[in-house]
């Protein structure tokens, strides 16, 4: 039987910043707190996705007018987004993992097997979104599992289950995409011309299984505008290595041969 591809569509135009997704994720996955820091950064003391934060609600106070997101006086908009692992279709972390700990599941999600990971740290620098990280207390790499355990029990991931505004939508990718396209068209009709989809038909990752509806440039949400799985460019580095190695070998051989010949004639 062909398994369906599952993922998230996060519609940021509906996010109210309640952080229920963060809490539900922590609770279900039994993740510890992040140290109770005060970031002095809007209503956001979580700051970023980490090894112990797999959903993060980003609060962005934008000094520009964005349709439907304005509040207060003058040109000011609230942008809220629940960030998560993108479960890239070509995933930098998965390609980089030397132990085979990071796998693609039957649901097309990207999953770190904790019983295999040896904490080499290579996935961390291979992720173009800065999602995956290593826990200092246990030495292994961790990130969103798309609630792999819940999926196997036919349940919805905790964050999507708890989201009160359906900003986080979970389901079969093609169905989500169709719904997302309808949503953008609807917003455009209502005059929210800024709305667009991020992570669909993205060349560098071949598309994200967790994609977003955004209302401003990706950088505003701390998302790269042109993310690429790093392995897509590694051929040039390998080529350079083999050319340099050939030159080195030939030079060494020539040096020893000529030294041998010179001495032979003396």
């Amino acid at each position, binding site marked *: 039987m062909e398994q369906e591809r599952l993922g998230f569509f996060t519609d940021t135009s509906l996010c109210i910043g309640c952080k229920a997704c963060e809490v539900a994720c922590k609770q279900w996955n039994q993740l510890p707190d992040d140290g109770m820091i005060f970031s002095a950064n809007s209503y956001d003391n979580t700051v970023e996705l980490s090894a112990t934060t797999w959903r993060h609600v980003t609060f962005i106070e934008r000094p520009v007018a964005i349709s439907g997101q304005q509040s207060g006086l003058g040109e000011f908009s609230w942008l809220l987004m629940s960030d998560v692992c993108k479960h890239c279709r070509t995933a930098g972390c998965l390609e980089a993992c030397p132990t085979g700990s990071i796998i693609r599941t039957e649901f097309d999600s990207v999953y770190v097997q904790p019983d295999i990971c040896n904490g*080499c740290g290579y996935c*961390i620098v291979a992720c173009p979104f800065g999602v995956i990280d290593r826990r200092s207390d246990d030495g292994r790499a961790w990130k969103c599992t798309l609630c792999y355990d819940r999926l196997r029990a036919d349940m919805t991931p905790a964050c999507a289950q708890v989201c009160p505004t359906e900003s986080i939508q979970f389901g079969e990718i093609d169905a989500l995409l169709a719904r997302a396209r309808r949503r953008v068209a609807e917003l*455009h009709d209502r005059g929210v011309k800024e709305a667009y989809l991020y992570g669909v038909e993205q060349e560098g990752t071949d598309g994200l299984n967790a994609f977003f509806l955004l209302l401003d440039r990706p950088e505003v949400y701390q998302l*790269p505008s042109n993310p690429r799985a790093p392995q897509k460019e*590694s051929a040039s580095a390998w080529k350079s*290595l083999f050319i340099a190695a050939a030159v080195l070998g030939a030079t060494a051989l020539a*040096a020893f041969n000529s030294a041998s010949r010179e*001495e032979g004639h003396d």
Partner: protein
Amino acid sequence: MTEDFLSAPPESPLVISERSVTVLKQPVWIWSVPVYFYLGSTAGTAAALAFAAQTADAYRFRNVISKARGISAGSLLLGSVLLIHDLGRPSRFLNMLRVFKLSSPMSVGSWLLATTTPLVMLAAAFSNTSSRVLHRIGSLSGAGSGVLGLPLAGYTGVLLGTTAVPVWKSSRTLLPPLFLSSGAASAAELIQISSLNISELKALARLGVFFRSAELITMLLLSRKLRKNRGSSGPLRSGASGKLWKAAVGLALGGLWFHSWKPTSRRMRILKVVTGIVGGLSLRFALLEAGKESARNPGEFESQGKS
């Protein structure tokens, strides 16, 4: 039709200066990784030099062969320990050999390390044996480790280049030749510490000059590339990584200058070796530091694409 859904509004100004823009995660690698980068490239090229000498004239270059194999074996053993020490779960280091993945330079490198180390140890053990059979085994292992040693010495450059970290990614074609030339220069200098005959000294002195020059040229090419693409401030140009990089360039220059002296005194040769080691370590630490700075540098944000 689809373009309509996928295009971001381009006109809005980007004012996020007051936020700490955290884009990529910093590398978690500790000091032992750059030290391994140095040891691995020195050991791999030492094994290759030994094989070249063995091919040219195994009897004439017997001292070079045995010293180079010894240096290579020792460095690889120490390097392996350092790599295991860096792991979050050191007890699971054998998982590195659980799969073989061409897409992962770290997987390829683990296999290179795991095959080259025993081969070069065998070769080193049987360098000066009087038994014909053992000598033959030593020669064969020497050939194997010499061939595998070259990619082993340079895969670390591919490893850094195959990441999302902008400064590493944009240097990906220069890092492998940089590690190879730097390692080979250090290997040639290290072998010269021991007592060698005239032919051996001649060959190694030439190789030392050639590889130091190649290293310096590659460093200058890399500096130029970064300056041209990203200006004079940023990773490898300013900050801690900039200082370490300047030290590495200076020490490589100094090392090259030492090569112009006659290698008569043992003290002189040791000075050259120490300069090479400190310079080589500065180079690798500069690159790790640059990666840490680059991952957190908002100015580097846009440069994830093809460069």
